[in-house]
């Protein structure tokens, strides 16, 4: 069953085309790696698939329903309740504790405070951060911060997780640990993952890989997949 499906997407920024007839789909529980060089349009594709951007033309479906024609408010609600996001850095609110950060999306979804913090504590425990809930995010290492971000993304029980260079700011060993956790938990939870990366080692965790080049999406060949 396809969770997210994009067909013939076009999207430009001013006179610069970012996506040109891009089509891609990700199935339930599938981990899809979107690869490509810098400026190729892979982040734009992720933003379109997650409803952050609307394409200039083409169609995006989520769970069989058109996503690109929804209002901004409806797409915002969808992102808050159905999708999870992990970025390269800077997604944790510095004034909040680690537990606050993980509980934040639950509170935004009107979950009771007690339940939100209990869920946050459980996810922090699963990600090996059980003792760090009261810490400020500035006191975490890069790997710990990304694990906290994964806990935050998964705490709401999303059906799709969008990850944009989730290990981009980490060293290779820490990045590997983070990816193992992210992929392992996604598989346990049956979450579809759209993983944007230019790193072949990160993409190796995916079930399938596509390449974005000059705004167009290609299935990865064997050589490209091995990079």
């Amino acid at each position, binding site marked *: 069953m396809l969770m997210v499906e994009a067909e013939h997407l076009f999207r430009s920024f001013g006179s610069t085309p970012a996506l040109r007839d891009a089509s891609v789909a990700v199935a339930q529980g599938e981990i899809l790696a979107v690869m490509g060089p810098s400026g190729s349009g892979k982040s734009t594709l992720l933003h379109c698939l997650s409803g952050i951007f609307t394409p200039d033309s083409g169609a995006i479906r989520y769970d069989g329903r058109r996503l690109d024609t929804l209002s901004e408010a409806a797409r915002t609600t969808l992102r808050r309740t159905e999708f999870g996001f992990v970025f390269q850095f800077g997604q944790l609110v510095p004034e909040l504790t680690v537990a606050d950060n993980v509980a934040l999306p639950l*509170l935004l979804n009107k979950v009771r405070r007690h339940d939100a913090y209990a869920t946050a504590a459980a996810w922090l425990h699963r990600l090996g951060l059980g003792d760090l809930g009261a810490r400020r995010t500035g006191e975490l290492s890069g790997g710990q911060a990304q694990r906290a971000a994964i806990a935050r993304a998964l705490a709401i029980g999303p059906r799709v997780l969008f990850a944009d260079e989730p290990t981009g700011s980490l060293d290779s060993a820490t990045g590997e640990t983070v990816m193992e956790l992210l992929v392992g938990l996604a598989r346990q939870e049956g979450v579809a993952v759209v993983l944007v990366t230019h790193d072949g080692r990160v993409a190796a965790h995916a079930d399938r890989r596509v390449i974005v080049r000059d705004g167009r999406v290609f299935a990865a060949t064997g050589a490209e997949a091995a990079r």
Partner: protein
Amino acid sequence: MMFVLGARLTLRSGREALARLVLIAAAVAIGVTILLAVLAEFNAFQDTARTRCWQCTTGTPVGPDGPGDRGVLWNYSEDYYAGRVVQRLDVAALSAQAPVLPGLLRLPAAGQYYASPAMARLLAAVPGEELADRFPGVLAGRIGDAGLTRPDDLVIVVGRTPADLAALPATRVVGEISSRSHIDGTTNLYRYGLGLVAAGLLVPLLTLIGTATRLAAARREERFAALRLAGATPRQVGVIASVEAIIGAAAGSLIGVAVFQPFQPVIAGLAVVGTPYFGYLVAPSLAQYLAVGLGVPLAAALAAVVSLRRVQHSPLSASRRVTPPAPSAWRLGPLVAGLALFAVAAVVFGRQPAGPATGGLSNGPGNAVLPVTLLGLLLTMLGLILGGSWLTMQGARLMARTARRASALLSSRRLADNPKAAFRSIGGLVLAVFVGTVIACLIPALGAEMRAAGGGTLTDVLRVSFVPEPDPAAEHPVLGLAPGAGGALVDRLRALPGTAVLPLYAPEQRLTGYACVGANACGPTEAAIACADLARFPALGRCDGGLRAIRAQFGLLLSHDNVASLRLPFADRDSEAFNADPAAQPLEAMLVRAGDPATLERIRTLLAGYTARIGATSAPKTFGESIALRDARYRQVQQVALAVVAVTLLVAGCSLAVAVGGGLVERRRPFTLLRVAGTPASVLLRVVTFESVVPLLCAAAVAIAAGLGVAASVAHTVAPGGPALPLPGSGYFVTLGAGLAVALVVIVSALPLLRRLTDPNDARFE
């Protein structure tokens, strides 16, 4: 080189740098406009006080050989109309070279008078028997600005014949009109007070400018740290940081000066100290323009350099930022001590029961209350400033522990994280609102205390004495109006509808007591009174049932302007009987209650002729008018305090708006990513609103509560006859409400920045 690089980084670093520059310039422009307004108001006060005080002219008494043929005959007195002072000068030129007072080209001839514009309007507006009949002659011209201190002064210069004027006891021969200024002890007190206010306003204004300069400190620190990593020296980074601040502040100063110009006439008409100034006096001097134009950018540059201390210590400082240390509880010490002092003072210095008569005045709370009150005030103000950040932190932590909504959690954690920064913008506001509340509560309480004296029945009672100041050389001192003339006057007054008269007769054929309060308020202190007349004024006392007349000491009843401090009633069952017919004695004074304001002015017009003949330099006035004059002085203080509250609220609102803008720029990335992850913009709007509006409202509430508490304690001591919980008048609520509303509008106007800065469409550029 670094200057050029700094200018390029400031002007060509994209939208964020430009937005920061605009915010700095806007904040500085507001600060400069307010600063210029305060300086202009201060200048107007100074220049008004420096105007020539022709009223201070003294001269010499008219000798037994007549006034001579040089100079001018001069008789200055103060009259009253509807509670307002009318400055009256009766003159008669003794020669063609007679000195002319400022504002006039020549002295009025006999049968003419010159009036100030406000006086001329009043004369034209009210019936002659209520005012114009007091001044013989016709209006011959206007007195120019040089003879006035303010545009609404009621001044009249009446021309008389030398013979008429020489016959009045208070007339002097003047060879030269005084050239001294109006500055006296009170002026200096106001001057220092206003100077302190102006200096005090600098603190929140500099906070505003500093907050603007520190805008988005974290983002800038990252940039400057990168410059350090690239090899720039701390000095070079300091120059680059200063350039940004100087450009923003210089632009803001220019805009502020430009914005101030159209506001100048508005400020001139504001009447901050109760009455308006001449518009042309309300202007900053060239030196002040230059000082503001150069000083503000310089202060901004200094603030920029100081705010970058951490970057200058280490090129990696941006990544090493730590949460500032939390304020400790000891900061509450002065506040607790100050409030405790007021509580103790209220108990210890509560008014003592009245003791034996001392000049007819009742006992006050004593001198010790002043230093205790001042110490308590200082401690409370210090405590509010020091303890504010601790209270902010505790409140925010409590909120964070119990927050059920994401917006409350985000904002309370931000406030708890750096309460000093949160409180910095509103520290000045807390002080201003506290002091303003105390003053605004106490002044009506003091007024109420005065009006409540004598059960409030004496307010509209006119007091008039017919006994001139005793001349030690005189063989037969004047004891008042002769019985016939006195009786006729009493009958004439009683014939006026709704009028009650209490004649006070000389008990003996010699002056038994006489007292003055100040130079213009004198009168006898003992009288024979008919019991039937006294019965119409029960607040003053009553006779024993069988008596027809009594002899009573009434002390300063005729001269003291604060009826609340008089010892009343002065007549009771123990009062000595007066066995003769009092109406057969000279009429030394009287109390008159008129039925309505128009009748009151008619009575005053009638009495003016009598009082001038005994050399009185002040027309008779009611207790209520005396209170109103005293009140007017208090209200000047109150008005200045409320103006400061309003300005401080505005400045605090601006500081908070700038802080909100800075906070948004600093948190642009996490906020944008929160919006990307589905957080509605409305949640983030609530976050920044909570971070700015809640501290503003809470700080105002705490300051108001502390002010009310302190005012209640002080009022209990100095005005026990007033209400138990003194409340401010409507002016206070209007000022506070309007100030808060404007501050909130300023804050809310910064919020659209949030949507723009955190637009998910810009996420790709993060």
